[in-house]
């Protein structure tokens, strides 16, 4: 299975994880370690940037884990750029998951503000991973302004609905020159495997692991599903079809002519 080149790093694991909704920070750490995830997103709103003993960050302090601060809570590009700069300074990383969802109900991303902020943040030297709608044109526009990846949604955050946007994801994967990370909506390992089989470069999973009665086992299950899906993609899946192949060839007569 090939490694993933993203930003300035190589990732052995193609499973990215989140840190919200866990029953305790210890359980979060255990689940993330079991998942073998190497890119972990954390909401700025949840960490204490002023203190150097924040409990969430303490539990994520492992050499193989790249922190991916996210801007959840901002409502426009201006707020996002401001928050990103504070995060870079406090957390000493230029990695950023750009999330601008002004709608607090479904947490759906604002495409206009996301593109605006992405352009500015790339210029400021950030490795930008934007959370966006599964919109193929928007993904190309983000690629053009220099984002390190695109992170289209499978379904609304936390909905566990799976790949509701599958047909658009296919187009995005086909057209993209940067890694495609399917973010949000992945509720089961089978959804993750499906995304990977389709050719997604990685998936980001949070709720399905955090809210499971056994987050550690679920983290491990997602790891296996992501690996299986990626391996299958690399090994090339058998074609599926609805037309049966006739056992007596239909065009055999051509040889007789």
């Amino acid at each position, binding site marked *: 299975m090939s490694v993933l080149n993203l930003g300035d790093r190589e990732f052995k694991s193609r499973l990215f994880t989140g840190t*919200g909704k*866990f029953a305790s920070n210890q359980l979060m750490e255990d689940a993330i370690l079991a998942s073998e995830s190497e890119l972990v997103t954390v909401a700025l*709103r*949840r960490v204490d940037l002023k203190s150097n003993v924040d409990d969430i960050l303490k539990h994520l302090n492992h050499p193989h884990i790249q922190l991916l601060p996210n801007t959840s809570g901002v409502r426009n590009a201006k707020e996002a750029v401001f928050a990103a700069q504070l995060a870079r300074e406090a957390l000493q990383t230029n990695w950023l998951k750009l999330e601008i969802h002004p709608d607090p*109900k479904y947490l759906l991303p604002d495409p206009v503000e996301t593109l605006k902020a992405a352009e500015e943040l790339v210029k400021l030297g950030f490795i930008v991973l934007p959370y966006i709608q599964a919109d193929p044109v928007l993904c190309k526009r983000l690629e053009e302004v220099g984002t390190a990846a695109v992170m289209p949604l499978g379904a609304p955050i936390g909905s566990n609905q799976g790949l509701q946007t599958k047909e658009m994801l296919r187009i995005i994967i086909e057209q993209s020159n940067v890694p495609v990370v399917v973010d949000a909506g992945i509720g089961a390992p089978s959804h993750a495997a499906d995304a990977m089989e389709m050719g997604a470069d990685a998936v980001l999973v949070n709720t399905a692991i955090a809210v499971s009665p056994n987050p550690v086992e679920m983290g491990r299950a997602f790891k296996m599903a992501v690996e299986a899906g990626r391996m299958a993609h690399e090994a090339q899946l058998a074609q599926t079809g609805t037309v049966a192949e006739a056992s007596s060839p239909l065009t055999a007569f051509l040889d007789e002519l």
Partner: protein
Amino acid sequence: MTFESKHSSYNWDEVKESIYNKTAADVERALLATRANLEDFKALISPAAQPYLEQMAAKSRALTLKRFGKVMQMYIPLYLSNACANACVYCGFNHSNDIQRITLTLDQVKQEIAVIKSMGFDHLLLVTGEHPKDCGFSYLKDVIELVKPHFSQVSIEVQPMKTEEYKELVDAGLNTVYIYQETYHKERYAVYHPAGKKSNFSFRLETPDRLGEAGVHKVGLGCLLGLEDWRTDSFFTAAHLDYLEKNYWRTRYSISFPRLRPHAGSFEPNSPASDRDLAQLIMAYRIFNPDVDLSLSTRESVKFRDNMMQLGITAMSAGSKTEPGGYAVYNKALEQFKVADDRSPEVVCDMIKAKGYEPVWKDWDDCLQ
């Protein structure tokens, strides 16, 4: 257009009748709905839903877990003043009550927040009566500026203000405004609020519209359970939420459940809501709206809070003092209401953890303000 035009399109008695006429079939339909609507909400708060509490609890719990996870937001109120020019017949701060009136000075506020910080809190709720001279807009602005460097999230539960004033307070660091209509029954509202600025029903009713326009991040709604028929008032609160979500879609919302408690003025609730009723109401809200914050204060008992925290509630206060200066400056001046859960924040947190939940102290940041 504001919510007032929507409000006046409803007739209280008709709404009440339609709630009480809901049937078991209506409740079952509401429980099966993918996305419940206001008619489903009526069914879920109706007497017909009483035999379905167990199913409601299961659904409410599952929806809350999925949307919010195994976490509980922690906040604490800081009563700044009990000075009040209003005459709310049910309230201990009523201006005609002969009690000692206290408004904390900025120095006293500093003493209070030092104690609050030592308890671990990072989300602070400022509370006052309504007294323009003692604790009006400029006093509140001064207090917000004073406390903001010490807290990630600052909320207020005070008199309604103008849009421009809210904008200024947001710039000073205000995040959330709680504004309870008390009752949506316009005629009865006048009976409960006979004098003072609060007697203006419409100005209060339109406050969430002004908050939406001012860009306040979160708005808390509620009605005072026990004043009028709690089911009908709760329907109006849910309709208010529904209207606000459609019109001010960038704003986050929260529902609180203030229930009348014994106090110095001794007011008897007209339509008391029992524990069972309140549980039904909380679960109905969750099924109606999987995304709204549901908050439960220390007005409620230990047993009720410890159990409801897993059935829909997403935010809790702990260790609350409901008199100005109660944390550090004074001891027992005069409370607005008696707290039923007087456990320390530490004990409440141990309970939350024992239930398999993580207490969340910080869920906002200056960089987002």
